[in-house]
């Protein structure tokens, strides 16, 4: 079975309708309550989902028993469910969240002093879709680099088709991986968001993450080096029912130099990013939603 098949969509129309109705009737807390039963079902019967989360849990909690790790997987499922509910809650206009933007002034001044835009490097942790909405106050267009098969869900979550929103999509499957569009966006002062946690086997460097070797994509750093724009790391986390923190305070400067030297420096940048993910996992161990064994075959 391919990795793509492992990431099959879960949930059906009836299930989603029940959650949506519950949200309107019982509010956020009541709807979160449903998750404890639904996630128990997935924990018991969805072996692929459990294995894809266990790959992370067993590295994050090396000394724990299998049972405790299984509880960890259950907590991740519940938090992922809360994320999905929160996204719907937000886009349907039922309410909003208190989003603490850490590093906003730094990012704002970076955009102010630089006519160019920045690359936003993020990962499938926390609730990056909710985090994106927080960036709207920067007043810049945000381009998301993502595969077409992920478009529908993200378009819905971010309400991208709405003309008033300043979020757009660039497909990596367009000509030359969308690099011409990416460079144009950066040169015009926009923000380009790239996922840095899955390499799909291409353009990746080895790094150490949670004690094991993993391959992470380096495209964001190569583009940053060419455009000479900084890479701003965006990591978000849910702190309480209605509060999120979005951290954009960590910045990785673009590398310079001849190609061979640049490649070595980019390897360092990839490891720096892996270190940030390590720290994130230490602080928010159950908000890691990189489903799949990204370490597989590297050790």
């Amino acid at each position, binding site marked *: 079975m391919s990795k793509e098949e492992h990431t099959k969509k879960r949930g059906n129309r009836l299930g989603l309708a029940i959650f949506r109705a519950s949200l309107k009737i019982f509010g956020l807390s009541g709807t979160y309550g449903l998750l404890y039963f639904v996630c128990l079902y997935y924990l018991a019967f969805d072996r692929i989902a459990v294995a894809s989360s266990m790959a992370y849990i067993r590295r994050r909690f090396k000394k724990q028993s299998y049972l405790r790790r299984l509880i960890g997987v259950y907590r991740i499922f519940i938090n992922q469910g809360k994320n999905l509910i929160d996204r719907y809650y937000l886009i349907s206009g039922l309410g909003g969240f208190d989003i603490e933007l850490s590093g906003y002034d730094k990012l704002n001044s970076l955009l102010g002093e630089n006519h160019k835009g920045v690359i936003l490097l993020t990962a499938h942790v926390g609730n990056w879709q909710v985090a994106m909405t927080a960036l709207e106050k920067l007043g810049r267009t945000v381009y998301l680099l993502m595969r077409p098969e992920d478009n529908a869900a993200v378009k819905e979550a971010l309400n991208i088709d709405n003309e008033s929103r300043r979020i757009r999509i660039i497909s990596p499957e*367009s*000509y*030359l*991986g*969308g*690099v*011409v*569009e*990416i*460079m*144009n966006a950066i*040169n015009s002062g926009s923000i380009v968001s790239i996922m840095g946690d899955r390499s799909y086997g291409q*353009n990746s460097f080895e790094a150490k993450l949670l004690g094991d070797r993993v391959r992470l994509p380096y*495209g964001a750093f*190569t*583009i940053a080096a*060419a*455009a000479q724009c900084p890479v701003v790391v965006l990591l978000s986390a849910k702190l309480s029912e209605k509060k999120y923190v979005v951290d954009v305070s960590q910045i990785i400067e673009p590398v310079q130099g*001849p*190609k*061979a030297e640049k490649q070595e420096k980019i390897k360092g940048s990839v490891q720096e990013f892996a270190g940030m993910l390590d720290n994130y996992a230490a602080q928010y161990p159950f908000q890691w939603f990189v489903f799949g064994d990204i370490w597989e075959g590297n050790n």
Partner: protein
Amino acid sequence: MQESKAEALAKLRKDLKEMLVKDLSLEDVNPEDIKDDEILFGEGLGLDSLDAVEIVVLLQRNFGLEIKDMNKGKEVFYSIDTLANYVYENTKSET
């Protein structure tokens, strides 16, 4: 007039080949090994999308050119010939 265009294009092709080899650090490739009509990406010279980033910068830095349109990019990045024609057509008023 026609001859000067041919000369200008020949010089551009030569310069572009040298820039590609240098800026992209193409190992085991000499500028003169690159054919004018050789496909740059995929089969042919074998460049990839991250090399394209360098070419975008190379066009900006050396010729002040930006490719705004994706379809135009596809046309321009095809070979050394198409690159040279694009640079020539968009800079000839300056020379």
